């Protein structure tokens, strides 16, 4: 393992690779520090990756695990659900529609529980097992709930999943089915998060993936950057458009690219990072517009429930990243989110959830404003599956109901000029 310890992002205090997520001195967040073997040349590094399994464990050299799980399939009970290696799709029709030249869709809905959360949970759960935890837990806006419940089932661990009680039914059903202890909390995600932060202090054998295991868990998001670079032929794209909830995914994608650029594994330069929020929960976009370097917490009110974090833990770091990468953080309203879902579906065949609608609508807005240059190569990070938020597309299109007769089709469908 190349990981050497944990470091406070604020005061730089060093800690060992322990079950710890907060700096004792200043309460700042801890992040994994690495010392990578510089004797390996780029060709050797790339060969090690290419020889790895078809999942995120091919990037184990850059993840904080002592004994990475490796291939999956026959050893599922030891390795858990295999996340990652999702498609990167060239989206020429979307690009045409937006007046851009090169747009790619990274479709992370193609993970085992249909969101990018399988990546972070795979890393968090593996590290939790190394540290001897026997219960997996989380505070979730839905996608993480699915991922934790499924990963725990695959690993044979007990799990506790805490969610806001008003989540989309699809996400609730797709969590409970795995046999987890599902707890619906009357309140917002931020209330759930507070409860879990308190609980994590009281339940010593519980690994809350996004609380006490968070420094390890968050590293899993770097694999999105590694995959994009590998799929583009070891090249870093010019521009990334990525959703922001806590800001963890957004900042870790940038970290992944930076690591590979430093080691020479990927070519190019650090990408421009654009962040996307829903207007009804946009503490980071608001701080960006106001030129602030910290976020003021908000009470969420948006259809993009997977992004409804009113008090984003990595908000200050997201703002810093947008600034230093030459990017931005924008927000779109619920109507634009619905239109974003439709735009992506109609031009690429990818049906995304509301968070993907936020990201697609933000890309469309940045393209229209001219913030994204037509000649840039752009990767749109699609984090979740449309079937999880069906209400968002209900009544957004017309359909016909006819008798099973030819004249019924001719009269009622073709005569109104549809279906051609």
């Amino acid at each position, binding site marked *: 393992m190349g990981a050497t310890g944990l470091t406070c992002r*604020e005061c730089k205090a060093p800690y060992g690779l322990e079950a710890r*997520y*907060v700096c*004792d*001195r*200043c*309460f*700042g*967040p801890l992040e994994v520090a690495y010392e990578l073997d510089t004797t390996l040349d780029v060709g050797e590094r790339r060969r090690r990756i290419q020889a790895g399994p078809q999942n995120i464990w091919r990037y184990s050299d850059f993840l904080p695990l002592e004994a990475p799980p490796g291939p999956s399939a026959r050893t599922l009970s030891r390795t858990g659900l295999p996340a990652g290696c999702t498609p990167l799709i060239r989206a020429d029709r979307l690009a045409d529609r937006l007046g851009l030249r090169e747009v790619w869709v990274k479709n992370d809905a193609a993970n085992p529980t249909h969101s990018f959360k399988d990546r972070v949970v795979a890393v968090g759960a593996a590290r939790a097992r190394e540290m001897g935890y026997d219960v997996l837990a989380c*505070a979730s806006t839905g996608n993480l709930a699915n991922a934790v419940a499924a990963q725990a089932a695959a690993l044979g661990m007990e799990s506790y999943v805490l969610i806001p009680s008003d989540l989309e039914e699809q996400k609730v059903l797709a969590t409970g089915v795995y046999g987890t202890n599902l707890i619906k909390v009357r309140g917002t*995600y*931020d*209330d759930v*998060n*507070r409860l*879990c*932060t*308190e609980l*994590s*202090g009281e339940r010593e054998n519980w690994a*809350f993936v*996004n*609380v006490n295991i*968070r420094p390890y868990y968050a590293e899993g998001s770097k694999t999105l950057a590694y995959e994009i670079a590998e799929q583009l032929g070891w090249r870093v794209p010019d521009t990334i458009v990525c959703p922001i*909830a*806590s*800001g*963890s*995914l957004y900042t870790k994608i940038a970290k992944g690219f930076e690591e590979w650029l430093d080691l020479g594994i990927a070519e190019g330069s650090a990408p421009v990072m654009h962040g996307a929020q829903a207007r009804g929960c946009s503490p980071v976009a608001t701080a960006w517009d106001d030129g602030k370097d*910290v976020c*003021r*917490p908000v*009470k969420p009110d948006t259809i993009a429930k997977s992004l409804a*974090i009113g*008090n*984003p*833990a*990595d908000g*200050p770091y997201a703002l810093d990243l947008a600034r230093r990468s030459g990017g931005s953080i924008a927000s779109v309203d619920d109507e634009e989110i619905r239109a974003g879902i439709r735009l992506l579906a109609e031009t690429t065949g990818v049906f995304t959830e509301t968070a993907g609608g936020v990201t697609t609508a933000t890309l469309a807005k940045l393209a229209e404003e001219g913030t994204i240059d037509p000649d840039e190569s752009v990767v749109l990070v699609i984090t979740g599956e449309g079937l999880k938020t069906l209400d968002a597309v209900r009544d957004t299109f017309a359909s016909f109901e006819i008798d099973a007769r030819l004249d019924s089709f001719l009269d009622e469908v073709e005569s109104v000029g549809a279906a051609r």
Partner: protein
Amino acid sequence: MSVKVKIPTQLRSVAGGDAEVDVDGAETVGEALEHLFERHGELRERMLEDGELRRFVNVYLNGEDVRFLDGLATAVPAGAELTILPAVAGG
């Protein structure tokens, strides 16, 4: 008038190991914390910077983030519960 202050695990080593401390005679969140700091001096620097709550310290009054209220000036009713927690969880 007594207020119960709940101390997170990360701060208990500088709070004499206490998980909860009752403080008396506090009208506001800031005063309640001052009473706490009189007892456990090291907590002040851990929680405050330039007289304000540190960026990654959350304080909840009966479950509500005091940043949504009047911050340290928020009035505390008798029997209230103040919970101190790290802010870097979630997502």
